């Protein structure tokens, strides 16, 4: 009898320890179910028990950022999808729409977020930033002006910074990947 009791107690304790499945979890799970990543994009969970925090890595197949792998942390809050996930680039890169702190200028992550959007929408938006960087909506003003004023020189600066190294006294991360 006693044994059964203590077993039940353990079970109850285990139940309590299990992360609660919230509305945000349920919705995120649906997002993941619908997500078909292309072969240039991967997703990983640094803490497999924590489904609300993950990393998306993208290797642009074309364009001036080709050859790099760009990593973003996604932090999904319990208010998801009423609140946009917080997305940060973990590398220091030279990009008109991403500042050197990793903040990303993507309208759907800010003022244009709406709860019918999903993780797929954000990943698509991030991919676009690398395929079509947009100097008219800058977060790194210097990079944007550079891109605007001297496209060729800007592209050289991008490939130089992608190798890791300094540009105007700022050290950038080597973003190249090995297969």
């Amino acid at each position, binding site marked *: 009898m006693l044994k059964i009791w203590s077993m039940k107690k353990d079970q109850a304790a285990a139940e309590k320890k299990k992360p609660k499945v*919230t*509305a945000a979890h*349920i*919705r995120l799970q*649906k*997002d993941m179910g619908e*997500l*078909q*990543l*292309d*072969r240039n994009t991967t997703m990983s969970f640094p803490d497999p028990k924590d489904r609300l925090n993950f990393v998306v890595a993208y290797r642009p197949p074309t364009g001036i950022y080709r050859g790099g792998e760009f990593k973003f942390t996604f932090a999904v809050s319990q*208010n998801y*999808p*009423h*609140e946009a996930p917080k997305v940060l680039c973990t590398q220091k890169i030279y990009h008109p*729409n991403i500042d050197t702190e990793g903040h990303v200028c*993507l*309208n*759907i992550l800010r*003022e*244009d*977020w*709406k*709860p*019918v*959007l*999903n993780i*797929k*929408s954000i*990943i*698509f*938006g991030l991919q*676009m*930033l690398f*395929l*079509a960087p*947009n100097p*008219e*909506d800058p977060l790194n003003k210097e990079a944007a002006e550079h891109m605007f004023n001297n496209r060729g020189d800007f592209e050289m600066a991008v490939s130089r910074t992608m190798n890791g190294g300094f540009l105007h006294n700022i050290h950038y991360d080597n973003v190249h990947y090995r297969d």
Partner: protein
Amino acid sequence: MAQTPNQRPFGSASSLVSLCNIFIMKVKIKDWKAVAGWRWDVPDDDVCGICRAPFDACCPSCKIPGDDCPLIWGECTHVFHMHCLLKWLGTESSQQQCPMDRRPWVTAS
């Protein structure tokens, strides 16, 4: 002001989005199945766009289907679980706009 929802997929004007749209038209990458499904303004008929649960099931805040979890229609014809929509309209970022088209939400009577 007379824009239809389809002309403004992202809400307020953004050159990035127009760039995106141009890009989609220009490039056909067969792998990008996800891209083919990239639509903002076409509501899925069977599921609530906010919680993605079917309309014949209740919203995530309710437990039992058949609970008091009604649907709500906007004048824009978009439909959601009432609880899901009210939660969205309760956030500051909603600006009282429809989650699909970002037009001012007016409940259809």
